[in-house]
């Protein structure tokens, strides 16, 4: 296989389709050519390996999402089991079958369309295929509702890759996170498929009914019911933490996201500064809202009351906040680059996510909007951080006293630099 690819690569060298073969080759194997002159440090962790590490961190979320899709459908039809057992009720083949038949097509469409466009642009532009879509293609199926129609996903992916990335010059040049561009496109183009109580359970739109009755099944996310003012939750805190709740495919299980986060931090792929400050930002905004409610400034009939009185730390357990902060905000291309910038960038993402969550009348989730907004501001933040640093050092130079050097020292310096 490896030799065959080598031969194919040589055969097509200099031809129009060369980038496509090169991409396949380097995706599977280490390149077989090296630089011919000079000394170089060679590392195995090129962009493709980096991307693969992120994908590895995402796989648990994907598999959990498959089981959860089946489980949510099961409890919507048959009601929640009285005593929940992980192996008898959740990790069952029937749950997995429902999940894999609905979610695998999403993954295939996402990768098929996205990589197809990447290959096409590489051949047109005549340069190598860029790796950027590997992670995006995995993120996209994880941040949409299970029942998203495949043609909608295909259009959104095409839009996101072309308008979100290729027009700016491809991987590394994009201003907005492509996966979130795709999500935002779906949200604005087809709002009825992105929110409400019919999209989170597989088959609800198609009109599946509850067992032994003619009532159609439905399932609302926790944030959705909070936004409608329903304060009593049927989900326990451990349900939220482990992820047995309705929501987008990969966002529900906080424990697996946490594991993914630790994996990314220890492999030094993602920035812990952004994650920590994002969590702090969300907590800060949540505390402010809780404070307003506790101070009695908000009448109980206000439509924001239920969401604002939602305990501040529980915001981290519901919706896509955790997933967004760990996997989307830490995108090295669209996030802040400076360390101090990362603190500001992450904090504002968390802060605004919770704010949009509470005040957005149409849709009770704001993480993707908050991250997209901060993507736009990331270069500005970096600019001022760098400027501030220059100013600080200039000031230090002004106040510093520079002692005159003796002629011996000057001579020794000269020989050093010579």
């Amino acid at each position, binding site marked *: 296989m490896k030799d065959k690819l080598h031969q194919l690569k040589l055969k097509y060298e200099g031809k129009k389709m060369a980038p496509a073969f090169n991409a396949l080759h380097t995706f599977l194997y280490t390149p077989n050519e090296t630089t011919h002159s000079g000394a170089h440090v060679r590392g195995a962790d090129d962009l493709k390996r980096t991307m693969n590490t992120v994908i590895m961190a995402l796989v648990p979320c994907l598999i959990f999402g498959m089981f959860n899709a089946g489980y949510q459908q099961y409890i919507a039809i048959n009601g929640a089991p009285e005593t929940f057992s992980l192996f008898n009720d959740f990790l069952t083949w029937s749950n997995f079958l429902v999940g894999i038949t609905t979610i695998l097509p999403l993954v295939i469409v996402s990768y098929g369309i996205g990589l197809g466009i990447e290959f096409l642009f590489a051949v047109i532009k005549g340069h190598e295929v860029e790796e950027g879509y590997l992670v995006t293609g995995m993120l996209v199926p994880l941040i949409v509702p299970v029942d998203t129609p495949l*043609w909608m996903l295909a259009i959104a992916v095409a839009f996101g890759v072309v308008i979100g990335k290729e027009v700016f010059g491809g991987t590394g040049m994009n201003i907005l996170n492509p996966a979130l561009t795709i999500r935002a*496109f779906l949200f*604005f*183009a087809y709002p009825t498929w992105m929110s409400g109580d019919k999209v989170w359970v597989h088959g609800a739109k198609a009109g599946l009914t509850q067992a032994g009755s003619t009532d159609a099944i439905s399932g609302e996310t926790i944030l959705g019911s909070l936004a409608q003012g329903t304060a009593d939750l049927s989900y326990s805190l451990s349900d939220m933490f482990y992820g047995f709740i309705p929501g987008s495919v990969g966002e529900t299980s906080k424990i697996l996201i946490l594991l993914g986060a630790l994996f990314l931090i220890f492999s030094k792929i993602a920035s812990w500064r952004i994650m920590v400050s994002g969590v702090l930002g969300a907590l800060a905004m949540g505390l402010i809202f809780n404070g307003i409610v506790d101070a009695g400034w908000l009448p109980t009939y206000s439509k924001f009351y239920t969401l604002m009185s939602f305990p501040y730390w529980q915001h981290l357990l519901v919706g896509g906040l955790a997933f967004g902060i760990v996997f989307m905000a830490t995108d090295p291309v669209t996030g802040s680059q400076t360390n101090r910038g990362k603190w500001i960038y992450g904090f504002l993402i968390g802060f605004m996510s919770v704010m949009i969550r509470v005040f957005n009348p149409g849709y009770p989730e704001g993480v993707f909007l908050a991250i997209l907004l901060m993507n736009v501001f990331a270069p500005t933040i970096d600019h001022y951080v760098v400027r501030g640093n220059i100013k600080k050092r200039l000031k230090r130079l002004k106040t510093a006293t520079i002692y005159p050097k003796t002629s011996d020292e000057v001579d020794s310096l000269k020989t050093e630099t010579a």
Partner: protein
Amino acid sequence: MALLSKKDSKLVLDPLADNNPITIQVLGICSALAITAELKAAVVMALSVLFVLSMGNVAISLLRNIIPSKIRIIVQLVVVAALVIIVDQVLKAFAYELSKTLSVFVGLIITNCIIMGRFEAFALGNGPKKAFLDGIGNALGYGIILVIVGFFRELLGSGTLFGFKVLGDPVTKTGLYSIGYENNGFMIIPPAALIVLGIIIWVQRSRNRALIEEA
């Protein structure tokens, strides 16, 4: 015998493509974003600008030798304002519903950069016949982009063209809607116009590479 000399036909044809006021000079973007959700509004807007720009160009061209250059902007504004008020009143009288859709944007033709730009750049220095042709050309160049953007936005956003349901009925699920197609709500909102416009500019410049500016 040709109706127009080669030079004159260039005045009309150039702004349609290679010197388009919207895609090349990037003028008059506001109205292009605001009123292109429906094709009908886009066409009416294009016709209004056609009237104002061609008539205004002729008027300014006739006055060009007696306008003191210090107050020429005020004179130009008076001419545009007069013409725009005529258009506005005609619309209100004969197409009231449409004038409500276009709302403030008919009035804002006064501030449309394309119009003042043509007055300044062309009508003040050329005779009435040439100015008239230049006005027609630039207004058509503006209109053609408006119609293209309006076509895609109405077709994809509402599934209609000029209000006719060309893709079937979304409520009774006929035509394309019977197999699960849905209208794209994104195309209705103004940011979509910016993206469609961007794609037109992209296509135009990759077809004619001479138009690409030096970075």
